[in-house]
């Protein structure tokens, strides 16, 4: 049997080169980590008929179906066409529905369960993930984005190139406050201690408040209520062998429109500054090389941030280096 396969195209098609010759694995995208169960039948069929009867749940909330023979890729692509069409119906730009996934560089946009279920969530994370998917997929640039409903950050937005964290502005009506201090105690214990109790009323320090909305949830009288929805954008978190680090705040109090525009602009930034001699270059390393200032200028082009928005002046990444940080016994 002759196997002559363009591995670049294979990878672009969301299959991978595995340790076993001739055997590949397919990654199914699940934007926002929320999937209509009607697609389960297809995933099951691929795994049973072409794979080894198992499926791996990926860290980015997709499904990876291992044990597939590379020769069957065309057949499988046809079989999964309803899933691809599903993406298209959501508004993702896809030309050939029968051809499988058109790109794999830009990873599945993952999301915590958000306000369809979670009481802490400040917005519908699945819906935002889908909006982002529409905006950036298909694309070959290696980018990881995740959206999370609140600063609990269950999806680990801090480990992404771009992490979106839901914010809400808590609005206080002193006339409804009975001084139970549930909000004060909770913010101190579980959040940042942004609230104090003075003269029988609650005072919020806006510089300490991370706009998580817990005070609103704790208040028995609705003295705290929800103001506008906003988003914190954290950037350039990563794992990897070189320099793992947590993402840090780039912007606070951004609105949805700005979030989408900034993400879009980041692709232009990558396009402009990526080292084309390399097979691939991760956006975080491009920013390391070109500098935060340049990144900031490029991604904020034509972005109309809300008045409340605060943009980081500089970001002091330290991160971690395997070969430097540990002093052994």
């Amino acid at each position, binding site marked *: 049997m002759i196997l002559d396969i363009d591995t670049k195209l294979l990878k672009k098609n969301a299959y991978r080169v595995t340790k076993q010759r001739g055997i590949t694995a397919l990654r199914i995208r699940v934007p926002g980590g929320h999937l209509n169960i009607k697609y389960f039948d297809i995933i099951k069929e691929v795994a049973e008929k072409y794979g080894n009867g198992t499926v791996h749940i990926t860290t980015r909330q997709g499904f990876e179906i291992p044990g597939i023979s590379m020769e069957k890729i065309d057949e499988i692509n046809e079989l999964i066409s309803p899933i691809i069409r599903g993406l298209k119906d959501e508004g993702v730009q896809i030309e050939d529905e029968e051809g499988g996934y058109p790109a794999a560089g830009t990873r599945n946009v993952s999301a915590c369960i958000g306000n369809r279920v979670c009481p802490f969530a*400040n917005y519908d994370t699945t819906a935002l993930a889908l909006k982002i998917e529409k905006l950036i997929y298909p694309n070959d640039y290696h980018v990881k984005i995740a959206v999370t409903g609140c600063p609990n950050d269950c999806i680990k937005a801090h480990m992404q190139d771009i992490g979106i964290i839901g914010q809400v502005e808590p609005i206080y009506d002193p006339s409804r406050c009975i001084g139970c201090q549930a909000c004060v105690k909770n913010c101190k214990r579980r959040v940042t201690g942004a609230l104090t109790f003075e003269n029988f009323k609650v005072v919020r320090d806006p510089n300490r408040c991370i706009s998580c909305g817990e005070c609103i949830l704790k208040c028995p009288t609705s003295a705290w209520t929800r103001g506008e929805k906003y988003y914190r954008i954290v950037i350039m978190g990563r794992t990897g062998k070189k320099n793992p680090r947590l993402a840090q705040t780039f912007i606070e109090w951004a609105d949805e429109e700005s979030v989408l525009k900034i993400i879009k602009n980041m692709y232009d930034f990558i396009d402009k500054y990526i080292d084309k001699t390399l097979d691939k270059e991760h956006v975080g390393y491009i920013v390391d090389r070109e500098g935060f200032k340049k990144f900031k200028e490029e991604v904020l082009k034509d972005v109309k941030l809300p008045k409340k928005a605060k943009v980081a002046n500089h970001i002091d990444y330290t991160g971690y280096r395997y070969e430097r940080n540990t002093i052994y016994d």
Partner: protein
Amino acid sequence: MGIELDVKSFDNALKILSKKYKIFAPVRLKGKGSFSDTDLVTYGEISSYKDIELSEKSRYSPKEVIYPITQTLFYFTEDEYKEPEIDDKGIIVFLRPCDANSYLKLDNIFLKNGPYEDNYYKRLRDKVKFFVIECTKGFSTCFCVSTGSNKFLDYDVFFRFDNDKITCDVKNDEFSYAFSGKEVEFTPEFIEKNEIEVKLPDIDKISQNLEYVFNHELWDEYTKRCIACGRCTVSCPTCSCFSMQDIFYKDNPKCGERRRVWASCMVDGFTDVAGGHSYRQKYGERMRFKVMHKIYDYKKRFGTTMCVGCGRCDDVCPEYISFIKIVSKVTDAVDRGESK
């Protein structure tokens, strides 16, 4: 006899009435629910039919209308004090029979509980006109029939809202001028059976077994389950406890005001006394205090159960503690009469 109204004539009536009255009803506040993308249904001022929210029970009760959460009693300077003025307008409240009855329960506390009437309560309460909303289906946690609060006949105007068809019975002639429409046969109806039926305990039996009920192990469970958040009491239309706050203004501590603010027997601090002591530190003991007040102590004093059976306490408890279940447990325990 009743009068049939359409939305337009109803709105017109509100407009006429609003010259002399502030008009309150359950309203839906978009996006103001505790959870994101949810609404808050509560009492608020209305100016038209579409402002009234009838499809959901209000989270907070209409007691806020006559007994605000924060009420300034007087302002003081070094040698003078002054009570704040109140609005000249009368007060119209659209409410269901259970909530209308809750006003009568509050009356007992504020007007008949001692030698003095509470003037701050009275001056608002005296303005109230009852515009009762017919409620024949109730909601899944209502038990107003069991508490005898399903009927309210002392209304000023009674309304049946049947989608956009509105029928009213104007009992208080004072309001005849505002409502005009076709005369129709109309008999107000009240709910006769809730989904939930609760047997209230016999208070004489409790009196005879007070120690037994007081020390009963049924309360222990709530020491573990209740988080003392106070939601049940804040949403209750008949909870009426308050505490006093003396505020000295920051810029000039010689001036200030005295306020009264709702308090809750479920929340820390309610029983704090000089010397740093407090009573009922266990949440189960607080639960006992609250429940017994609702179904026993109040009744012993005023001859009627305090609780009107609106079910709000069950609706709002984040720990899924059911007041209804507790009442049944008390009744059971009392009926079985097993002494320890």
